[in-house]
Structure formats: C-alpha cells, structure tokens
C-alpha cells in the first residue's frame, strides 16, 4: 500500500486528486484500494493475534498434564482463537480482497457506497478492541467456545459476556454494511457489456457470499440480542427455568453458523477459479456450472444446520432429513473440484506461489470435504461429534480452504497492488513451510479424534500424547512461517522487480488492463467489455 503513496508524485499529471497526506488519509479515506489495504492489514494482524492464541493452546497440549495455563484461561484461548480467526481474520480478509478487486474486475471507479465502506472498516478495530479487552477483566474473557452455547454463555458466563455481545453486534453491522456495498457495486457499477454471466467467478462467488451475509448476520445479531435480554432483562429465551430452551439457542446459532461456514469459503472458490486457469494457461472448464454449483451450495447451506446438533436428541425423521441434505452438498462441491481438475488437465502449467497455494487448496479442501462427508453420516457422527476429528475437519476446510485461498489471492494480486513482484523463492518457502506445518498440525487430529479425544480439553490421556506433540510441532511451524509471509509482503511493498500490467501471462480479466501498481483512481471512464 505504500506503493500507492509513492504514486502521489504522479498526482499532478493526473486530473484526479491523489490520496490525502498523513494519518487522516487512512481515517477518512473512501477509496476502495485504501480501504481494501486496511482490511487486509487488519485481518493479517488479527490472524497473528488469533494465531498466537493457537500457539498457547498447542503449547499447553504439547504434553499431557497442565503446564502453562489454567483450564479457565485455556477455554478463553480456544474461544477467542475461534472468534478472532472467523470474524477477525478470514471474513475481513475477503472483504479486503473484495474492496480491492471487485471494482477492478468489473470496471467500476470505486465501490458503490464509499463512505459506508469507510465506516464498516472502522467498526472492526472497535469491535475487536472491545472483544480483546475482555481478556484483561478480572473474571476473564469469553470462555464458552466460539459457538457460545447457552446456558454456559448466559447464566454461567463471566461478566465480560456483555462486552462480547456488543463486539459481535459491531462486527455484524460491519459485515452487513460490507455485504450491502458489495451487492450494490456488483449490481449497479459494472462496465457496459459486463453481463452477469461474463463476470469473473470471484465476483460471482462474492455476490452470493454477500447475499448469505445479508441473510444470516442479522440472525446472529438476533441470537446475541436474545442472550443479552436473557442475561440483563429477565427474559428466558434460552433458559429452561423460565420456560425457554437451551437447544433453541443451537438452532438459531447454527441457522447462522452453517451459511457462515460457506461465507468463509465461497470467495476462496472464486479466487482459485481465477488462479488455476491463469497458471494452467487454459480457460476454466465449466464457468456456468461453477456459478450454479456455488448457488446450490449457498442454498443448501440454509437447510443443513442441524447436522451440528445430531447428538442433542433430534427425532429420527429430523436426523434423516439433515443427514440427506448434508450429504447432498457433496454434489455441487464435487462439481467444483472436478472443474478445477479438468481445468488443469492438458494445460501448460507452471507452479508459482499462487498456483502452489491454489493446488494445495484443491487437494486439502477435498480431504476436508471427505471428512465432512463422513461427519454427515448421523450414526457415525455420534462417534465423531465434538472430538478432535471435527477439529481436524474444520481446520482442513478453513486453513487450506479459506487461508490458503487468501494467500493464493495475495500472491496473485500483490504485483497489481504494489507494482513489484514478490520474492518467488521466499514465497515458495512460505508455501512449503505452511503446507508441511499445516498437515503436521491437523492430520494427526483425525487420529486422536477417532481414538476418542474430545475437543476443547486442556489435558488428555497418555494414549493421545504422541499425536498431540506432532500436532503442536506442526502448529509452531505453521505459525512461524506466517512471519515469513509478513516479511515477504513488506519486502514486496518496499521494492523488487517492477511488475508489468499483466505479470501472469495466462491471467484474464479487466484488473490486468490497468498499470501496476493500480493507480489511485481507476476506470473513471468505464471500459468497454466485449
């Protein structure tokens, strides 16, 4: 982003004004590129914060016995790790990518609602400031898991739960505003000739993601509002004592929670669908079926939520319905994977860092999909549920899914953002360290989960010791390699081989028609799309 600052020198030649100077540029900016950069930096900081918490967790689990933290604090770490990674790292990173890339991809001069864009970003530091501050309260921060099941999160919660609720409200408002902005931009600001079915897949997946966000974030807001009312205003939505039902909480939460899972993965699908064709030098195999598959996944995400609750005592017909619906998700997901593989087939592939991350994404996400399919089988889920098998599953879809998707995107578009090529050798090192660390950390979790280790426990029986130690070593490797990523990005911003407008010879799309780094204002006159 400092490359963009360098560009102010040229502002005089341009009839547009360049960015304002100093700190106020960032506080008051309505420029989609500035806001995109801020989102990306914010999410990276949160990624490191949430990652440090994961390091605490893995350090405690390195060996059996309690060594480093108390169980109470351990629970706060697992809770905050989940909340920060989901709401602070993954979601803002995708919003950042959307801010930077969607206007460039559809030939728009900026986002449709630039002032709201600024506001929705600045809500985030406030939200996470509040959330993180709870760790310093006397009774500690949220300790009830990122899924905050009542009554542990209501009647039995630490006082800081009110701050937590307020924080969730703020980040919810931020996401909703971000989503409205994306929808308005995509539907109203496309360049002439850019029909919906000509949009890049990243734009398509984000459009669908934005609709998911608009549909479910308010439900989450309603859910935490009900909690707030139960805690402070004497209602009994989730308290059995007053005629409420703790299971209702889980239904409301997962009605939000399952679409949320896809919110975190669909934009990555879009990015990978741009990257694989670029490096295979071959068009995406089935554009139309990719769009329909994404839409089907989004639709199915609304009718599968109770597969997170197979053990709460749902009647047989309910279990069967949710089992079948969940298994169905495998079909559109399979269509996507087959599409990526056929795109690679008989291409002319090279394996630069974006492609490495994209290929790892396809392989590892598919493995996560397999364990997802196993988890969908209700009778088997009675054994898997709430064990490390589930932890392995969702880390396999989220780390190589969402996070690798974000890394792939970052390397793919860094030349466009900074005007420099990143250091390929370091980037490949980052990839291999992440890849090995990630597999070492999460693959053994399948084993301990199947062998019977429940999740969210600070200490365990000796039979789980070996694999936990391996997991911890893998997690430390993965964690350390992210500092390398930070170094690579800073190095790339500060200099490096100048990037041409289109640094990847196989890449397609309007974003490559503007110079690198992208000028502060682009597409003031809409391009013509044929």
């Amino acid at each position, binding site marked *: 982003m400092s490359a963009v600052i360098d560009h102010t020198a040229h502002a005089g030649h341009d009839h547009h004004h360049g960015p304002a100077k100093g700190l106020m540029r960032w506080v008051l900016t309505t420029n989609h590129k500035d806001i995109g950069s801020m989102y990306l930096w914010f999410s990276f900081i949160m990624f490191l914060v949430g990652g440090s918490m994961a390091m605490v967790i893995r350090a405690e689990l390195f060996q059996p016995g309690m060594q480093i933290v108390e169980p109470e604090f351990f629970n706060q770490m697992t809770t905050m790790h989940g909340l920060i990674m989901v709401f602070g790292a993954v979601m803002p990173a995708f919003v950042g990518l959307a801010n930077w890339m969607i206007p460039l991809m559809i030939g728009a001069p900026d986002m*449709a*609602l630039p002032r709201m864009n600024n506001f929705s970003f600045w809500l985030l530091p406030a939200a996470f400031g509040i959330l993180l501050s709870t760790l310093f309260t006397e009774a500690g921060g949220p300790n009830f898991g990122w899924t905050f099941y009542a009554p542990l999160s209501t009647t039995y919660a630490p006082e800081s739960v009110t701050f937590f609720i307020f924080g969730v409200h703020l980040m919810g408002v931020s996401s*909703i505003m971000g*989503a*409205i902005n994306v*929808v*308005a931009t995509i*539907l*109203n600001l496309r360049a002439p000739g850019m*029909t*919906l079915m000509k949009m890049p897949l990243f734009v398509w997946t984000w459009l669908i993601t934005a609709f998911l966000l*608009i*549909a*479910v*974030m*308010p*439900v*989450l*807001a*309603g*859910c935490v*509002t*009900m909690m707030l009312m139960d805690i402070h205003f*004497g209602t009994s*939505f989730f308290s*059995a*004592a*007053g*005629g409420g*039902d703790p*299971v*209702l909480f889980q*239904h*409301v939460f997962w*009605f939000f929670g399952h679409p949320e899972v896809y919110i975190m993965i669909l934009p990555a699908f879009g990015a990978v669908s741009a990257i694989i064709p670029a490096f295979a030098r071959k068009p995406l195999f089935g554009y139309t079926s990719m769009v329909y598959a994404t839409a089907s996944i989004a639709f199915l995400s609304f009718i599968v939520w109770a597969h997170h609750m197979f053990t*709460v*005592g*749902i*009647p*047989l*017909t*309910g279990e069967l319905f949710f089992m079948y619906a969940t298994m169905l998700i495998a079909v559109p997901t399979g269509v996507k994977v087959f599409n990526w593989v056929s795109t690679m087939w008989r291409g002319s592939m090279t394996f630069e860092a974006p492609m490495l991350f994209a290929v790892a994404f396809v392989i590892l996400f598919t493995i996560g999909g397999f364990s997802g399919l196993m988890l969908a089988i209700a009778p088997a889920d009675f054994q898997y549920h709430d064990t490390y098998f589930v932890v392995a599953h969702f880390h396999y879809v989220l780390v190589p899914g969402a996070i690798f998707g974000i890394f792939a995107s970052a390397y793919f578009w860094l030349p466009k953002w900074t005007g420099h090529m990143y250091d390929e050798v370091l980037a490949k090192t980052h990839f291999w360290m992440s890849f090995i660390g990630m597999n070492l950390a999460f693959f053994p979790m399948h084993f301990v989960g199947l062998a019977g280790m429940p999740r969210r426990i600070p200490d365990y029986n000796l039979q789980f010791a070996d694999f936990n130690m391996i997991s911890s070593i893998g997690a430390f490797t993965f964690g350390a390699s992210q500092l390398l990523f930070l170094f690579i990005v800073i190095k790339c911003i500060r200099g490096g081989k100048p990037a041409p407008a289109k640094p990847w010879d196989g890449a397609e799309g309007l974003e490559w028609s503007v110079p690198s780094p992208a000028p502060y204002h682009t597409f003031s006159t809409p391009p013509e799309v044929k």
Partner: protein
Amino acid sequence: MRESTLTIGQLTLRLCGVVVAMFAFGFALVPIYDVMCQAFGINGKTSASAYQGAAEVDASREVKVQFVATNAADMVWGFEPVAAQLTVSPGSVQEMRFIAHNPTDKPMTAQAIPSVSPSKAAAYFHKTECFCFTQQVLQPGERIEMPVRFIVDRDLPADVHRLTLGYTLFDITARKPPVPVAGR
C-alpha cells in the same frame, strides 16, 4: 438473475429491508421452534397449557409411565414423585403426585419444567392439569403435594411401551420473589 434497474439508493434501501426482516426472523424462530417442537415432540416438549380433549380408553393396551424428578444444581428443595411408575391404558385419565419441600428458612419460588422421553412420544402425552403450568411458592419448611393429571394418547406409536415424564425443578426466587403471605 435479471439486470438491476434500481438505483444504488433504492437497492441499498431494499437490502436494509432484508436485513431488518432477517433480524426479525431470528426472533420469529422462537415461536416457529415452539410450534415445531410441539408438533413433532422435539426435545420431549409437551404443551404448556392444559389439554382439553377427551378420549376413549383403549383397555387392550398397557403403557408404563415412569416418573423422574431432578433438581437444578442450586435447588435445595426436596422433590420426588410418590411412585416411580404407573401402568396405564391409553386414553384414560391418570394422576400422579409429586412432593415438594422447602427446607430453608426463607420463602422460595420454584418452577418445574417437564420433559417426556422418548421424544417421539411427547406429542402423545397430554396433561390436563399440571403443577408445571404455574410457579410454586413454598414458605420456610412447607411441604406440599403437587398433582399432575394426564392422558396417554391412543395414537401413541405401537413400538413405545414405556415413556418417562421427567421434571426438573429450578429455583426462580431471584426472578420471581415470593409474595409474603398475610398472617404468617
């Protein structure tokens, strides 16, 4: 999807409308869930009001009804059914009494929450009268017998031979302070 002919302002307004509607939908899930629960007996929930219908007795069939009383963790009352089990014919009106006893030196309010297992039987378990429809206030040392009257529906699935009616007793004194009784 058709091309948008709305201006950005109109579109934003409509999307905000969707947001408000979905927020309301979150709350609407509460009654929807209750209706679903009672219709399908999810969670072993039974109706929170008295059953009005009457039914013919099916003397050819016997169903065991088991009674279980549980105290929430901070509830100190004595609470138990007078008998552990009844054998009933579907359709007949039955009665069971539960004994509650407040051993403390303070008046307290309690609420009993019923649950029927297996959950698929819940929709066939009708209470015509139940102490769980109201709250119980017991004075210090007071002991009462609380009745529940019920009918097991004739349409109870044939594979259910035994059902369990469990009550959990919660202390809600803090929420609903007992009104002092005049003259005590």
